[in-house]
């Protein structure tokens, strides 16, 4: 990118750019929509929430003298009569990454003002999210059926169930909220709330704009991001 300008202010790249952005008046994040900046800061805060959960999990799992259940066996699923380790989890990861990809494309088509394409992709993302929530519900019911409870489980340390239900539950709540918003925004895209200067939204006096799809996308990618960490620490450890 060559040096773009924003209203009489030269946008330098790299750390020089950071210095001049920080030293400038009016805005620090040049060209970043208020809502987008807000979502980023919120996600930063939310990152700390999930980090605290995972740190607590690390502390709990690391310090227990009772044997920790082997996730590879606990989460195995029978396929064609053979137990495949982590099969459901692999599928869930697949679904979530797929939905993340469709979301990224939705953002791209949104900025290109391609209403139809953007709307369908947001809808696809919502359906992907819904599938994920469904699979998680199945996983939960399977574990509960096997006797895993938040306060005890037949495989080993009681904290296994506690942390599992709490962390995946908290993540699942995030996904569910995301799915609700995805459906709402799919409707908003199709209804043309972002066309012709935009329609006034709720919670704000600002006019609608396709940047909202990017803001929603940030949230959705964050949910995917958290899953990457949960997948690594919960299922692979």
């Amino acid at each position: 990118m060559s040096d773009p300008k924003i209203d009489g202010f030269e946008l330098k790249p790299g750390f020089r750019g950071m210095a001049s952005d920080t030293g400038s008046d009016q805005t620090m994040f040049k060209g970043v929509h208020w809502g987008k900046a807000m979502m980023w800061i919120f996600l930063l805060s939310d990152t700390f929430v999930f980090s605290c959960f995972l740190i607590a999990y690390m502390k709990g799992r690391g310090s227990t003298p009772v044997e920790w259940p082997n996730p590879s066996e606990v989460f195995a699923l029978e396929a064609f009569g053979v137990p495949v380790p982590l099969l459901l989890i692999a599928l869930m990861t697949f679904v979530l990454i797929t939905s993340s990809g469709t979301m990224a494309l939705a953002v791209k088509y949104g900025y290109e003002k391609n209403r139809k394409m953007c709307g369908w992709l947001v809808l696809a993302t919502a359906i992907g999210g819904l599938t994920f929530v469904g699979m998680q519900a199945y996983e939960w019911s399977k574990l509960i059926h096997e006797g895993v409870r938040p306060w005890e489980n037949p495989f080993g340390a009681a904290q296994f169930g506690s942390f599992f239900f709490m962390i995946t539950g908290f993540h699942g709540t995030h996904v569910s909220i995301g799915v609700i918003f995805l459906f709402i925004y799919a409707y908003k895209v199709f209804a043309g709330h972002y066309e012709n200067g935009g329609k006034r939204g709720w919670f704000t006096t600002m006019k609608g704009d396709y940047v909202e799809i990017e803001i929603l996308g940030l949230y959705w990618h964050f949910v995917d991001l958290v899953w990457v960490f949960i997948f690594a620490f919960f299922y692979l450890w």
Partner: protein
Amino acid sequence: MSDEYENKSGYQAQSSEALTGSAGSTPDMDYVRPAELPEQDLYHGHTFLTKWVFCQDAKVIGVQYFLTAVFTGIVGLILSWLMRLQLGFPGLAGFITAEHYYQFVTMHGMIMVVYFLTALFLGGFGNYLIPLMVGARDMVFPYVNMLSFWMFFVAVAVLMASFFVPGGPTGAGWTLYPPQTILEGTPGSGMGILLMLVSLALFVIGFTMGGLNYMITVLQARTRGMTLMRMPLTVWGIFTATVLAMLAFPALLVSAIMMTLDKVIGTSFFMPTILKAGEVLEYGGGSPILFQHLFWFFGHPEVYIVALPAFGIVSDLISVHARKNIFGYRMMVWAIVGIGALSFFVWAHHMYVSGMNPWFGFFFATTTLIIAVPTAMKVYNWILTLWRGNIRINTVMLWCLGFIVTFVNGGITGIFLGNVSVDVPLSDTYFVVAHFHMVMGIAPVMVIMGAVYHWFPLITGRLLNETLGKWHFWATFLGAYSIYFPMHYLGFIGVPRRYYEMYDSPYMTSAVGMNEFISLAAFLVGAAQFILIFNIIKTLKTGKPSPKNPWKANSLEWHTSTQPPEHGNFGERLPVVHRWPYDFSVPGAKDDFIPQTTPPSEVAHTKVEKT
């Protein structure tokens, strides 16, 4: 390529009158680059409900926050009276049982730290002052801001409700350490603790909504010419505290969720195997230390969430009332930011005697002592600001001076407690109580008082009575020292904190008289606060109207079109900022202050610094 930015973000630049200056080939010294963003649309309320209750004006929200926080503060004050009544004159008030005493201690601590000081500084002063001081029409998302207050209101309601549930509020100490917090036998271990945890979670959610607003307003909605290094230190303090809160409250939320699960569905995150009356409880395998780490990962930044806004506000007050620019402005800013950053690396100095990994003592003592460096820099700078200043000894300045003395006192005892070997014998004694009340109780409250006397004319258009103000100050200042100075001594002779009664312990006899004295002082100091309330009511009714900008300050909040400012703050057009807010007593200038909006050409002949 500039189009990319415009399109992406969906706003278009308004470059109407601003560009005229730069058009010619001669550089115009008054040039400020044009606005990046269009004017903010504001929702103006029409009915009583939208104007005063569910109002979206940050100033009204700020006052709502302020009043709610003061209400909780008065509850906390009354609780402290009851505690002192028991400690000074055990058995005099028969209704105070040991259980009640613990509940008072807990609720007093939690209310004062979270619901009073945090809400008052960030919610109250933050909402009122941030948009005015950075030159914004309002917070960036007024609707969310309104929700933030009402969420806080519900949190307070839930907290207060816990006084009336069976078993009463929790009595586990404000730190809520498990396992005893949720075990039977601790007062309020039933509904009380549950409501406390729910209230904290609501507070965090509400605060997140407000905090996002404060941060984005400071970062993305400043007026033309307002660079970060031209912001008043008040804004810097509140902003940095908000950043800390956004990153620290998650730990509180997580620990509240985990403890709720322990309490309600019987998980054992924090609960070890426990024998009770010979029987093993259902809990087992949890780690109480984990809670302490999570709690203090929130708790230590929380100390600075309270302290940093006070630092910022007091810097402004001192500068204005000593008619002198703040000494080392940039150093002050970096000290605030540095203290904020460091505060995330010191939390376990609250846990030296908890049984954590013994190596941690070294790490945390080191980081704790490092944090004294930027803090001391700030103290020096306040003193150097006063040095040879044109000091006006009015009520505001008295509070500021009181703050500096008190803060130095509390800070020095902090250095004692930061060292492991000194902390171990002093831990859980009245020395600790004296330390933290001095440093994060009395000192910030003094700043709040100063700020109230300073900004009251802005908010209501009337000046508070100076005589009453001085009585209020001296009663509070001398009284607070009568309370907390003896407490240091009590700590040294080993009186433990959180004890309901000392009974007849022989080594306590020397403490009896002192306890009575402290209690009497505490009653007086508490009562003295009602001078302020009386003063406010009297002033609202018959006080003398304030002239515009009564203190002759430079920052934008005093240069609004009307005083008090109306919704939208600045009337027809937003101010354009040319300088920092500290140009006082500039040699050669007509007045002894140069407002931030004065263009350089008007003061070209003076020896004003380029800022």
